């Protein structure tokens, strides 16, 4: 079955003859069924969907066309009947209430035909095709084929949205992840089998637990890549529930998925594909261990606060054929001459200052020798966030007698010194 807008449906009834009977009988059955549902329908039966649609719009009731007589049956119909075949056609004689709606492709093809003096589909069908093509191009030829009731394309059946969901009512409530693991396996195995058959991958896994307290505990896990391995999905669900456990025992378990179509990826001969399910499992485990917002890729933040960063979701490329391409705007010839290795927790330091400049830096950190300052640059001052979490500091770069160059800072509000990183 194929739908055309809100008012027209075409069905392929070939094969129904043995079930229902002749085409007329089938048509009558359709009308009766529609009437039972409160719908008044026009039905046309023909050997092409084009002819059937045109006749259904043009004639009330039931119309049955014998095979081979489509063109002759359509011939007396007025030219404007062609407007029923989807959008893109201009109404002829729009009338007082209707306004023409030209398309970008063919502004007024039917209007043009009317101005030539054509009135019926038969008039259009009778025109020489080559001359029609010369004047109206492919649009004209398309209209002519419709006027003759010719089939333009096969029926494209409308699929019914399939729900991928499995549920299980438990005989007795379960508590804890271990028994839940068995239930999830029992639900996910057939679900994933269906997904395999439909060539679908899961992008969001939804677990709904109906609790003994009549509350619903719902979790939605977004997956980094479509997958349908039931073991991986079960692991991810369990990891998520481990971090977000239900507050009571469970009566009913429902597993649903949002899906996407399977994709075919062509990897290079030497490129190593990233195993997305392994990665997803790893990310889920890390998230359960560290907290969801503490796993990901560092990203720069729009602020002058030294060392500020945010966590973005980890989304690596699909293959690592060219690792250097991972670095944005990477230019091999213009690699930075030095980098700062930040100490993610700044190291408290003791700094001796003379004439406003640091002359000696030491810390209690093992392995940090410290020493006298041989050269220093700075201070560079930054401050901000005065409305919430103020920072106000001076930064210096100091080259010490231990041979290393460090970035140190002093909080101007508290006076405390820190070693922020090593300049490499």
């Amino acid at each position, binding site marked *: 079955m194929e739908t055309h807008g809100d008012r027209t449906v075409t069905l392929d009834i070939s094969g129904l003859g043995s079930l229902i009977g002749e085409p007329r009988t089938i048509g009558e059955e359709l009308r009766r069924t529609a009437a039972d549902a409160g719908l008044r329908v026009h039905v046309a039966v023909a050997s092409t969907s084009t002819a059937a649609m045109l006749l259904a719009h043009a004639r009330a009731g039931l119309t049955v066309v014998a095979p081979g007589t489509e063109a002759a049956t359509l011939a007396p119909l007025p030219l404007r009947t062609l407007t029923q075949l989807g959008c893109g056609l201009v109404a002829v004689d729009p009338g007082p209430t209707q306004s023409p709606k030209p398309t970008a492709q063919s502004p007024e093809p039917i209007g043009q035909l009317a101005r030539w003096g054509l009135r019926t589909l038969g008039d259009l069908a009778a025109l020489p095709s080559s001359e029609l093509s010369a004047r109206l191009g492919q649009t004209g030829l398309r209209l002519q084929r419709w006027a003759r009731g010719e089939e333009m394309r096969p029926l494209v059946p409308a699929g019914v949205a399939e729900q991928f969901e499995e549920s299980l009512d438990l005989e007795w409530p379960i508590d804890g992840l271990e028994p839940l693991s068995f239930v999830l396996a029992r639900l996910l195995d057939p679900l994933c089998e269906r997904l395999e058959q439909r060539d679908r991958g899961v992008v969001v896994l939804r677990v709904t637990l109906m609790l003994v307290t009549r509350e619903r505990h719902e979790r939605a896990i977004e997956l980094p890549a479509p997958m349908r391995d039931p073991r991986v999905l079960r692991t991810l669900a369990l990891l998520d529930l481990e971090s977000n456990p239900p507050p009571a025992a469970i009566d009913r378990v429902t597993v649903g998925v949002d899906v996407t179509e399977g994709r075919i990826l062509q990897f290079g001969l030497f490129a190593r594909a990233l195993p997305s399910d392994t990665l997803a499992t790893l990310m889920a485990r890390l998230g359960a261990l560290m907290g969801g917002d503490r796993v990901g890729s560092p990203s720069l*933040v*729009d*602020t*002058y606060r030294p060392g500020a960063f945010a966590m973005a979701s980890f989304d690596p490329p699909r293959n690592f054929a060219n690792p250097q391409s991972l670095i944005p705007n990477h230019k091999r010839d213009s690699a930075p001459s030095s980098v700062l290795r930040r100490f993610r927790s700044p190291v408290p330091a003791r700094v001796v200052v003379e004439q406003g400049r640091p002359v000696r830096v030491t810390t209690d950190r093992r392995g940090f020798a410290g020493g006298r300052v041989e050269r220093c640059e700075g*201070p*560079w*001052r*930054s*401050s*901000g966030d*005065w*409305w919430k979490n103020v920072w106000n500091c*001076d*930064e210096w770069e100091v080259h010490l007698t231990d041979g290393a160059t460090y970035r140190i800072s002093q909080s101007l509000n508290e006076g405390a010194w820190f070693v922020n990183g090593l300049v490499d």
Partner: protein
Amino acid sequence: MYFELHAASAFSFLEAASLPETLIAQAARYGYPAIALLDRDGVYGAPRFHRAATAAGIKAIIGAEITIEASASSSLAPHPSPLRVPILVESAEGYQNLCRLITRMKMRAPKGEGALTLDELDGHTRGLIALAGRELLGFQKFGVGGLIDPLVGVFGRSNVYVEIQRHLLRDEEADNRLLVDVAGTFHVPVVATNGVCFADPAERPLFDVLTCIHHKTTLAQAGKRLARNSERYLKPREEMARLFRDLPAALASTEALAERLDYTMADLGYRFPDYPVPPGETHASFLRKLADLGARDRYRPYHDRARAQIARELDLIERLDLAGYFLIVWDIVNFCRHNDILVQGRGSAANSAVCYSLGITAVDPVGMDLLFERFLSEERGEWPDIDLDLPSGDRRERVIQHVYEKYGRLGAAPGGPRVAMTANVITYRGRSAAREVGKVLSMEPGQVDRLAKIMNHFEWVDPKETLARNLRDAGLDAEHPAIQSFGTLWQRI
């Protein structure tokens, strides 16, 4: 010793935080003998700046930051953002040139916008000094000097200074070294400035708030549009001397340039347009005759008391060389009367028997015993101010056009234009300030509305009506840090 030659006031409209008076007060506190005000694309703050500086015994140097953009006709390649060239006024001719340049820029652009091209500056730079700073290095297409070479071409080598600023920014010093080298290459002196945007570091929060309002964002989302630190304040002279101790020439240039910049608003050299009097008459003699004629009509009989008052006023008017002003106002009133346009002089002008005699005002000040000195006094040293009420709409416009026609549009009259429109600069009031500050602080819309309703300034202020009481009445915790920030910023803005 250091002189600050690049400061901006709140008349840079959302790009600086301090009023001209606040800058002068701070300058006086730090012993500055002179300070320069360079607001964005205008001299709006110059009168107040000058008045405050005069009262404080400080020389008020005037200038402006002019927006320059690349044009198809200039050799300048398009720059990603318009650049600002700080320009200082050296002489009266320089001030005229600056005002003409600003007027040309503003007349052809929407309100708040406008830019000039370098080509348009050419020929209008006499009496002006240009500062070339870090921003101008961005025009690398012209080689290592960037825009400095074209500026030298337009202003002349002796009228360009390379400007060095130090705000303790990491990437600033490399550019400063380059600027010093460029100055040496082009044989132009180096001058140190601080690019002041607020008088005191405590005004930095207000500066950030204004930045957010300017960019229509909040503090939480403004990111790097906010200042990186609070160093753009008017620093003590000693601190600036320490900051630039390695560049003594840059420090010395500030004093030399401050001495060279001779012009202040006291040298405006303003005079009224010449009213065309009949042959053989002067402004004063013609005014006397008109006043006498008018008085005979107004005063019936024309008694001695009125005669003496009018004579006294005319003597003062003549002494202060203001006869032309009265003739012009009389002419405008006559035009209105001849064209059936309602007109009425009001205010302190009603205290003048001369104005009454000329038909400018409708009240007999002699009979009402009104004090003329309230209108015009030699001791006050101020010019008189005669307000005329006109009907709104087309009739008012006809009067304006008459003034333009008679006294000359831009460049139409001999000796140059003599007519200009003035406009008010609006300021934040209680409610508007509350809304803007509340939005910037990302406060709840309901909270902002409540604050806006209570933040009013009335003519009469209840001594018990404090900000804290108002906040509490609105159901807000006056001790909460966010509310305190709001209160402080609202008061400052």
